[in-house]
């Protein structure tokens, strides 16, 4: 057996995600598995964001709905912002470092929605906090 050995539950699930600028951007909620024609099954993506944890906890219907709804609300051209392809993971240690910017991730979608639709409408909210 060659290659580093990890356990999905012990070493990956629920670990912190850090974006390329060092910002905290969610947790590993699930892992996507893909099969090759020869039967090899491997981790092809990290799943993180609204709906993913519901799915993992067995609530597949609400998890799938939230995942679809967040993708629609983000208005992004990415087909599924909850999915982070494994090629975007640059390091696995006590946290996972990814080569993606935090604003492009579904895990920050709720925060962004509140900012744009609620906080942004409060008079005086459209300036920096230190001004």
């Amino acid at each position: 057996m060659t290659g580093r050995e990890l356990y999905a539950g012990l070493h990956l699930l629920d670990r912190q995600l850090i974006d390329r600028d060092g910002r905290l951007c969610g947790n590993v909620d699930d892992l996507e598995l893909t099969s090759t024609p020869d039967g090899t099954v491997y981790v092809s993506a990290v799943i993180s964001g609204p709906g993913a944890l519901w799915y993992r906890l067995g609530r597949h219907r609400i998890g799938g709905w939230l995942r679809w709804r967040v993708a629609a609300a983000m208005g992004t051209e990415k087909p599924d912002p909850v999915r982070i392809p494994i090629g975007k993971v640059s390091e696995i240690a006590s946290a996972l470092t990814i080569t993606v910017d935090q604003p492009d991730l579904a895990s920050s979608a709720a925060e962004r929605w509140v900012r744009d639709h609620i906080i942004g409408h409060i008079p005086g909210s459209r300036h920096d906090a230190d001004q």
Partner: protein
Amino acid sequence: MQISDVIGAAVVDVDGVALGEVADVRLVQDGPFVEGFGNTLRVDALVVGGGGIAERLGYVRGGVRGPWLLRVLASALEGRARIVPWSDVTPTDEGFTANRPRAELRLLRDEYGDTPAR
């Protein structure tokens, strides 16, 4: 398929004897090459049964050491889990079937050895 579809699934041996649920999945980084990551994490084996919460503490697999009393108890429970190679697993509607009898499946403690109590 997602890893959450595997973890928690029921596993029986080739004779239909219940082995428990999948507690964890062992991954080995020798899977297909992906640009930006290297060799991907291949599903190598299922960790089945064992001691529930004790497996999440990592006393056997994670090399966690103290406190010694918790270490002794958790290691004993975690070590009872069985390793089922992915190549010996057949998915079913109820979970997974190991294509070997229970007695032929290695215990986790056999792979890592007993962690000596201090």
